[in-house]
């Protein structure tokens, strides 16, 4: 008799959490998915991906991961690195101007010399890819603000 009672209790114990999980699982599965969707950035084109690699390697230390000018080396720099994800700034500058600034550096375009010229380090194609990537930065910025 006692054995049977124990078995019943055991069965009850096992079924209760099972029932709970069955109920909660779909709901739980739904919410993170719904929350996630806007965060996932759109897949980048091949050239843009290459640009991103270049950005991460050479620019991120000062301009920061999102281009906001908050790289870990930025606090040393005066003037502060440019916020590249600023839509206003992006609107103002043409692709050629951006490429020129990368190529000749701050000093070359009459700005701070702390932005070095990359024309001897990066190929013209890499710079073009970089510009393409820079153009995607404002879009990436939105969800965080």
């Amino acid at each position, binding site marked *: 008799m006692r054995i049977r009672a124990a078995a019943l209790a055991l069965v009850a114990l096992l079924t209760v959490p099972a029932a709970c999980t069955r109920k909660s699982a779909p709901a739980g599965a739904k919410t993170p998915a719904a929350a996630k969707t806007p965060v996932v950035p759109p897949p980048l*084109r*091949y*050239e843009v991906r*290459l640009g991103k*690699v270049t950005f991460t*390697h*050479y620019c991120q*230390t*000062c301009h920061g991961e999102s281009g906001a000018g908050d790289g*870990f*080396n930025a*606090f*040393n*720099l005066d003037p502060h690195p440019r916020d590249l994800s600023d839509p206003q700034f992006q609107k103002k500058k043409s692709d050629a101007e951006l490429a020129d600034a990368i190529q000749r*550096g*701050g*000093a070359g375009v009459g700005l*701070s*010399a*702390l*932005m*070095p*010229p*990359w*024309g*001897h*380090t990066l190929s013209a*194609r890499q710079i073009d*890819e970089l510009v393409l990537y820079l153009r995607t930065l404002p879009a990436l910025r939105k969800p965080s603000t």
Partner: protein
Amino acid sequence: MPLRRLFAISSVLFLLVLAISPAKNALRSYRSLQRQYRKLASSRAHSLKSAQGYEARPVAIQQIWLRDFENRVDRCTTCHLGVADPLMAGAPRPFDLHPGTPHTPGGFDRFGCTSCHGGQGLATTQPDAHGSSVDAGPPMTPPVFIEAGCGRCHLSDSVAGAPVLSRGRALIARAGCYACHAVRGQDAFRSEAPPLATLPLKTGGAWVKRWLKDPKSVDPNATMPNFHLTDQAIDELSHFLFAAQVPKELAGRIEAAAAEPPGSSANGKKLVSESRCITCHTVEGKGKGSAPELSKIASTASRGWLLAFLREPQAFNPRTAMPRYHFSETESRDVVAFLEDEFRDFDAPKDILEPLRVNQSLAENGRKLFRLYGCFSCHDPAGSGSEKFGPELDGIGDKRAQSLDFGRRTDLVRALPAWLAAKLESPRSFADGLKMPSYGFNADDSRAVTTALLALGAQGVPDRYRYAPPQKPALLPGGPVGSLIQSYRCLSCHQIGDRGADVSTAPLTYEGSKVKRDWLVDYLVLSYTLRPILEERMPVLRMPREDATQLADALESFYVDPSILADPFAGRPASDADPAEGQRLYVGLGCRGCHILGSSGGYYGPPLTEAGKRLKPGWTYAWLKGPQRWRADVRCPDYGLSDTDALRLAAYLETLVPVAPSAKPEKAARGVR
């Protein structure tokens, strides 16, 4: 039916049926695509003449014939007509311009299409060319694995511009796949796994059983995979391992060390932090290194073993990356005392280090299991003979899906990448009796490894297409200098030529041309932080001064680069090169953005406060003329300086000597955090 009517009907049918094939042929899809392309391109053309040129193009099969590249024929351009035409940038799919890569658009006539993308170049129908139909030729490589194509020709471990492939190759090497699987060019591979001879004196039966159950749960840095052993198999293997004969000499050392009096934990803490163990080891997950996790080391290894190991690691594992620290007897006792006090698994059972009492019959079964699972491949490679334990991996990238054994995995897509990914994720799920262990790769790792595997083609590409970066000769002297380099394991972090690991940013190949000898001696005796942002720092090896001098002399005389001038100023005093102008350049170029000089400057490059004491002017000059020549991915930009300017800067840096050569190490020694 009257004969004549039958004849008429059958003749007409005959005509109709015979006409089907020519009709089908006339309606092949590439023809209409080419007509569409003509229309699209001529509408996009900038001039009437070029539009007419497009209109006049005949409808015909296009092909790229690469006689010297495996006699490849790629007809992809029959439909993908705009791949090399800048006019077609952004056009709809089959007609769009190929994205720019190192080999495109300039290299179509050298590389074709299938060399990177796979698929069947000979085909002129989409399902067959893309390999999407069941019994078509080889399928295209899915875009996520596209770097597999790079790996067919680029044979080096690390391929610039192919990060996934490079990572995959590194993971394969680290996981020790080559120990069991033969791969062309990897015959010399040896796993770093330790020999197991001293195991009975190192640890206890409970620990070994835990480890065999799942190495990664014991140490997240473990390279040993999970063999999914049954409890009985674990038991038998443990008995086999504890039945091993410990070499007398080592056993003596361990026992003697165990008998030594305990040291001072406080001093040990200081020493550990100075020694920068976390350059290689992690402590509770902190640190970038991949050497064993230290936070529970005292519950892994006995005190005697730890002490003996610390004093001469290479005696225990000749392939270990661990350098020999020249701690004094007392100091090493202090270090171990600290480890015993702090780095202990307090949840572990008391008897975790109790040796196992060996049962001979279980041990005998264990010996069979040791062979059965190929444990010898990593732990005792000498005993494995020349035969590799697992099937060879050469050509796996060209395996056709039909020839793969999917076994029970009916859930998988019948394609090679899916098969490989599933093999890596749960190798035993295909059939019973499989032996391959699982490595716990995450999705990214698995993708990288799959990419590297897909790069292993059945045949090597022709020599003309094979590319390995030029081999940098590695000068490894024998004699006393060689044994110093060996015992300090310089190659665990530094590169010499192409040998050694890439942990340090300072390869030793031309170190003699780069730094001044006297500085180097001091640095070797008591190293300090050069680059504040790096976590991997030169450990304080407690090197005796005579060792340091000997090493510095050897570097000074052997490890030089002839293209670095010993004296860039051509015999004149450095001040002639106008260091004041150099200082102005230093400011004008914005060097301070990255380099610390005195009390200000960026936090990125190495500090230049005492550049004059450290660096040889010839090196400074050579570096300024093109940093990327010395380290391809260095972030220091190439300013395109003229010779004069570079010389001026070098002269300026030569003037930077520390005012008061005070002891820096206190500030730098941050060691374990």
